[in-house]
């Protein structure tokens, strides 16, 4: 794993603060979501990304607007970092018509055509074939675009994972495979489910370049993604990145976390991607207490505004229940 700390550069100060702000937004948006869940404003499943923010926040700046993103059911962070509005995401979790999927998807199925965000897939491994197909279309249409495909390390046990790595490599498709290895597939520890726990090595058997990256370090994530995306965009075929990260919260809101020690969680929390990055920026004189206070205020205002937006939203009329099962077509 590349563990060298990326040196800070003074002329990037504004960008660093953007990254910090992005991670803070994801963190506070989800803290608020958890609270709203206990108030039963949000129902269904709610999978929090807290602890893993550096991955989404670091990957997205390396992508371009014309690129595509395929994500998992733990995707609030990806959606926010991709530029989807907190309002539309919160309204979606409320089940309101103003939601990014008109209340048809919920937390696990955030979609947005404007930012080419293709879900929110709640079948582990099920998004990979879509990413391969989006990339195939780009290749056949001669579009120099990249499809970024997120999945957890649990997905690598699925057949679809292996089918898709093979097909993408065989056809040299522009896919960026982004594995978020948070060490637990729901409650199953990596070593209890994989014969090879060095996940990125699996890409080698498909002749695919790969790297393991510190997923708690936002600059390392960004740098690795930029490097990989450049290779993919140049037409060299897919690239595989394994981000080593950790989920601080439970798998979902129904998880007593009997499968891991509290000490382990506490150890990882010492590597909190937001706290550690903020400390570095402070040490470098880029972040001051005043700036931090301003960021916190801004981010909470955005989160609170999303709740207000969602609360004020409307329910889709039940008469529209059968809409979007088939495309609406103009009358002949």
């Amino acid at each position, binding site marked *: 794993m590349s563990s060298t700390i990326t040196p800070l550069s003074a002329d990037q100060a504004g960008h660093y603060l953007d990254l910090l702000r992005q991670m803070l937004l994801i963190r506070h948006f989800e803290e608020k979501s958890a609270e709203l869940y206990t108030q039963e404003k949000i129902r269904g499943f709610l999978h929090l990304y807290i602890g893993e923010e550096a991955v989404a926040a670091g990957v997205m700046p390396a992508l371009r607007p014309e690129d595509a993103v395929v994500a998992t059911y733990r995707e609030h962070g990806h959606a926010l970092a991709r530029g989807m509005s907190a309002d539309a995401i919160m309204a979606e979790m409320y089940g309101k018509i103003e939601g990014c999927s008109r209340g048809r998807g919920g937390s696990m199925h955030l979609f947005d055509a404007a930012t080419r965000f293709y879900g929110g*897939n709640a079948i582990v491994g099920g998004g990979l074939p879509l990413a391969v197909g989006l990339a195939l279309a780009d290749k056949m249409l001669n579009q120099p675009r990249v499809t970024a495909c997120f999945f957890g390390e649990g997905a690598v046990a699925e057949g679809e994972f292996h089918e898709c790595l093979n*097909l993408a490599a065989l056809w040299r498709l522009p896919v960026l495979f982004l594995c978020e290895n948070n060490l637990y597939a729901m409650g199953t520890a990596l070593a209890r489910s994989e014969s090879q726990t060095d996940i990125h090595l699996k890409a080698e058997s498909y002749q695919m370049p790969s790297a393991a990256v510190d997923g708690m370090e936002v600059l390392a994530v960004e740098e690795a993604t930029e490097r990989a995306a450049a290779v993919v965009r140049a037409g060299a075929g897919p690239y595989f990145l394994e981000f080593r990260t950790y989920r601080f919260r439970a798998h979902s809101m129904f998880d007593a976390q009997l499968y891991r020690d509290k000490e382990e969680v506490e150890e990882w929390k010492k590597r909190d991607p937001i706290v550690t990055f903020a400390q570095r920026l402070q040490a470098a004189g880029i972040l001051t207490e005043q700036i931090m206070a301003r960021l916190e205020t801004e981010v909470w205002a955005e989160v609170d505004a999303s709740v207000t937006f969602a609360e004020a939203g409307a329910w889709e009329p039940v008469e529209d229940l059968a809409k979007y099962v088939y495309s609406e077509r103009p009358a002949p």
Partner: protein
Amino acid sequence: MSTIKITYREAMREAIRDALRRDSRVFLMGEDVGRYGGCFAVSKGLLQEFGPERIRDTPLSESAFVGAGIGAAMGGMRPIVEIMTVNFSLLALDQILNNAATILHMSGGQFNIPLVIRLTTGGGRQLAAQHSHSLEGWYAHIPGLKVLTPATLEDARGMLWTALEDPDPVLIFENALLYNLEGELAEDAGPVDIDRAAVRRPGRDVSLITYGGSYYKTLAAAEQLAGDGVEAEVIDLRTLRPLDTATILASVSKTRRAVIIDEGWRTGGISAEISARIMEGAFYDLDAPVARIGSAEVPMPYAKHLEQAALPQTETIVDMARRMVA
């Protein structure tokens, strides 16, 4: 009108060729569709004509290449994905159900999937229990999909283009026993509608409702019945989803008797659905309970005599219809 002699296989190939010529976004992918020429030789010669970009041989990974078809459709292409048999499609069921059929709805109408999947279906070739089943009824259960079952040369030639123009996923089930069927087809045959059943043979005494591979057995049964003075009306459903209930009910209301012939299993099958719709829509017009003929409720056996005993047969249809009008 001048006609040409053509097989079902050739009609299907002509449909694919026509689509490839009409629209540069169309491509065919699947196992052995290229160099091999297709497991059932449907795509024979197309690789030479259109090249490996548009006639794509895939690895044996149904889930990946069906899912890739879904992604490519969302990405602006018009893929035709071929799955060798319906039994193999079960390896891609996750993609077909959880993605192709649901993404339009889950995304609140943002992403439609203009994908066509072609699959062979049906028994009668002594291929036993992993290559012979008729699962089109299962797929017809799923909202979000359209399910076509071309039985005639016109439909083999004409349904594909209409399916490709559809904004949503369409599955085309080709009964493998039909590939060698030969007949006359209009020289200028082209696209046909994909949402209406067809009354192929008008009659007044009993409605024989069928589709796909059982269609010709049913037609033969109607011929035999005519010899006895029983005029059977034969309905070719053509499309199992959406089901053309209006045509079924109009026929049954006229004949007052219905036999449904379906190569699938009866329990929970498409024949059960059709029967229920007749009860709901034409109960008071019926002179007899609706009858169903399906495959025996066993995995398809290999031995010829057992397989034939398991499948719907012309004689069974004739017997059932006779008893009903007696």
